């Protein structure tokens, strides 16, 4: 079983598929396992296929896994859509309520028809079919109904003990039914002996929101959009506990300008969105750039272009993050590669925005943002708040009226910043080109000084390394990814190495400023470079070509069908490019 188990429940949207998955995942997490959950859902509220895949492992992973061992199918479509994922010896549980469920003859799969809905009805209510399914699963993997009690209690106790009891009894019914009628069993991975004190089950969006709170962000101005809205939900719950506020703006233009205004006034504020909203923020990116106002924008990417595939994952906003907005101004683009990094980079985003007085785009994606995974900790003790060149009142003491150089042409490109309320720091922040005092002007030489100053500021960027690298510099093939693909690429690397190849892995976590020096040796030395991206144009590959060259050896492994990257996608493509390469 290789230390892991892939489990999935599927059915129609609105049938409670998610909560079934959640209960299963939480239970395993609490038992000390590592769960990683990926939700497949559609852009409609009820109906349409949805499923919830959980990969249970004995160590932290960053991927939901290629394989499926157990599939709980509430309808025919679930069988159709997911059959190919089943491993040999896997078990499919099909609800007989959805008629005579058909299945392909391929594969060596145990197909068990179970009257999940019927059993649920017997136990009181059809909606309990999910709990029956949980019980069936428990029986298969050797858990007991009682293992689920703590999670069931947490979920239902506010509805009363009777609800808790009936849920638990539905689990028992499923458990007993399976044991009475079937005998196939599958094993869970070895149960970790010690549970880390901060063994957390958390999504990228939650980690991002928590990071923002930890960074001192007290204003979130945002407009709802899948898959970013959960950041709003989390912060609307917790910001008020710290005196902060979530403003639901009338649109994304308003949201981003509110965030800019709040930052200008000295608070830490941000906006969170996805592609369509991000596209509406382009003008304000430039304003933040030239007025040197800190600004944090979280873009949880989804399938584009336009409304595209709103409930599917993609890494296709990188171009816009790097190049959107007219004219030229500096920006930082962070692409966290793990859930932990979502937290850490969210904190850092605010520090960098204030240090460099420019917009910081934190680009995750639906896969990273909405998937939940077990992790061992969040490094809360290293959280620091660094506010950059914010002047203190005493530093302003000597400055007489009209003499504060907010846009001083400094050597490092960063100028002192005052905030309203400070005496002696008055200035105008503005989108027009200006002199050192913030007066609008068109003088050619000052224009150049200001442009160069702004361009210069990121030269001293050093806070984040920008990429994690593993493997030798002269690998046969070097896999390069950014953002959420770290886990899957890492596993693909292992798989390829198992096949005797020499493989390196570079995962970019800061795309701008591009960590060219760190990455170059891995590109220069590699036999072939395979840029692995969840988009169709190879946006990261373009950055490699542009920043480093080596056009002839850069190949792409792309996926843009709405599904997340799988290990086998990478392995297959890697072998293809190596095969071609070896002909040369």
């Amino acid at each position: 079983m290789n230390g892991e188990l892939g489990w999935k429940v599927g059915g129609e949207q609105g049938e409670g598929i998610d909560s079934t998955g959640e209960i299963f995942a939480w239970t395993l997490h609490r038992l000390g396992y590592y769960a990683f959950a990926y939700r497949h859902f559609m852009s409609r509220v009820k109906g349409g296929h949805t499923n919830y895949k959980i990969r249970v492992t004995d160590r932290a992973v960053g991927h939901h896994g290629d394989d499926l061992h157990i599939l709980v199918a509430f309808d025919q479509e679930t069988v159709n859509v997911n059959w190919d994922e089943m491993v040999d010896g896997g078990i499919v549980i099909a609800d007989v309520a959805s008629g005579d469920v058909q299945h392909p003859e391929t594969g060596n799969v145990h197909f068990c028809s179970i009257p999940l809905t019927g059993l649920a009805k017997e136990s009181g209510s059809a909606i309990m079919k999910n709990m029956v399914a949980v019980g069936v699963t428990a029986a298969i993997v050797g858990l007991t109904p009682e293992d689920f009690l703590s999670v069931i209690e947490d979920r239902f106790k506010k509805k009363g003990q009777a609800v808790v009891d009936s849920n638990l009894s539905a689990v028992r019914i499923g458990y007993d039914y399976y044991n009475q009628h079937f005998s196939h069993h599958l094993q869970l991975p070895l149960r970790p002996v010690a549970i880390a004190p901060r063994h957390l089950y958390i999504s990228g969006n939650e980690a991002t929101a928590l990071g923002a709170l930890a960074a001192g962000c007290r204003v979130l101005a945002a407009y709802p959009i899948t898959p970013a809205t959960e950041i709003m939900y989390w912060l609307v719950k917790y910001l008020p506990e710290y005196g902060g506020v979530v403003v639901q703006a009338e649109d994304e233009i308003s949201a981003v300008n509110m965030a800019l205004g709040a930052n200008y006034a000295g608070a830490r504020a941000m906006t969170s969105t996805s592609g369509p909203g991000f596209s509406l923020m382009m003008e304000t990116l430039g304003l933040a750039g030239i007025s040197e106002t800190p600004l944090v924008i979280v873009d949880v990417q989804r399938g584009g272009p336009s409304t595209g595939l709103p409930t599917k994952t993609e890494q296709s906003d990188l171009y816009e993050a790097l190049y959107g907005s007219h004219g030229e101004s500096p920006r930082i683009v962070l692409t966290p590669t793990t859930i932990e990094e979502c937290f850490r980079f969210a904190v850092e985003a605010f520090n960098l925005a204030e240090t460099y007085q420019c917009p910081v785009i934190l680009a995750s994606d639906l896969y990273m943002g909405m998937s939940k995974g077990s992790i061992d900790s969040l490094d809360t003790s290293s959280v620091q708040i660094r506010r950059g060149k914010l002047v203190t009142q005493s530093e302003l003491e000597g400055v007489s009226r009209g003499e504060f150089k907010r846009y001083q042409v400094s050597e490092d490109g960063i100028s002192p910043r005052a905030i309203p309320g400070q005496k002696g720091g008055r200035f105008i922040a503005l989108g027009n080109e200006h002199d050192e005092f913030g007066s609008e002007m068109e003088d050619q030489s000052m224009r150049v000084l200001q442009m160069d100053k702004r361009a210069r500021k990121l030269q001293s960027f050093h806070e984040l390394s920008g990429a994690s690298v593993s493997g030798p510099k002269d690998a046969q093939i070097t896999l390069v990814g950014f953002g959420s693909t770290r886990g899957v690429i890492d596993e693909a690397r292992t798989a390829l190495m198992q096949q005797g190849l020499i493989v390196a892995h570079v995962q970019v976590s800061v795309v701008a400023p591009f960590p060219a020096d760190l990455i170059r040796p891995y590109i220069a030395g590699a036999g072939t470079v395979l840029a692995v991206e969840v988009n169709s144009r190879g946006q990261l590959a373009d950055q490699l070509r542009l920043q480093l060259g080596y056009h002839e050896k850069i190949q792409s492994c792309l996926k843009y069908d709405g599904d997340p990257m799988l290990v086998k996608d990478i392995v297959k493509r890697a072998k293809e490019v190596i095969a071609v390469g070896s002909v040369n």
Partner: protein
Amino acid sequence: MAVLTDFKGEKPTWCPGCGDYGVLNALQRTAVDLGLDPEDMVVVSGIGCSGKLSAYFGSYGLHTIHGRTLPTAQGVKLANRDLTVLAAGGDGDGFGIGMGHFIHAMRRNVDITYLVMDNHIYGLTTGQTSPTSDPGFVTKTAPKGAVEFPVHPLSLALSAGCGFVAQGFSGDIPQLSAILKRAIQHKGFSFVNIFSPCVTFNKQNTYEFYKSNVVKVDDDPEYDSANLGLAMAKIEQTQSIVTGVLYEHNRPTYEDSVPNYSKTGLATAQHVLTEADFERLLTQFQ
């Protein structure tokens, strides 16, 4: 206490005679009269001739992009509710590209004051039709005259639940300054539309026109600015050529309505979480 010169920023570059001088002037007076400190004030301005107000007034300023004064100003206020925050811009900025924000800012009722320097024209871009241009008004983009029904800012403001709706005229600085005083003092969003003639591109909505046509609500002893019906009737009767405070009504500000929002400026506080905070926050993930 700050004096008039404290509220003087850069030297204005408006055309001689521009109505915006009057607005600046009235605002400076008001600030002195209210005993405000220029360093506790922020003027957020838009793009347009009017948008230069932030540079000419001596407070902190944020000269933002076209049409986005209101979101930005609300952000400033939410960051630091101890500041006096004004938003200022033109009729194009506020009622054209900025229309959506205008309506929504009034609904939200953050405690800021919004001044529109309404010259019925796009000034800075040298004379195109604006949303308040009179029907038939000839401009470079409407050489045969404007055909759209003009925006009626006061009526829209009343429909959108604005708690302070006033109109001034930059040719009457004492009145304007009295209005601005009440507007700034009003708790909640206050909106002051100001007839501010563009002497260069608008030869129709002139000082003379307003001087001879404007009705002042102050002149009507019966007028009661607490009465919404009266306000609507007055605007209708005068076809909006009316000045004074048309409507004032207190409802809780956004700041006072959202749960648990800080009673003092967020910007000036420390926001470090303790390990105890983290422990508490992390239990939900355990």
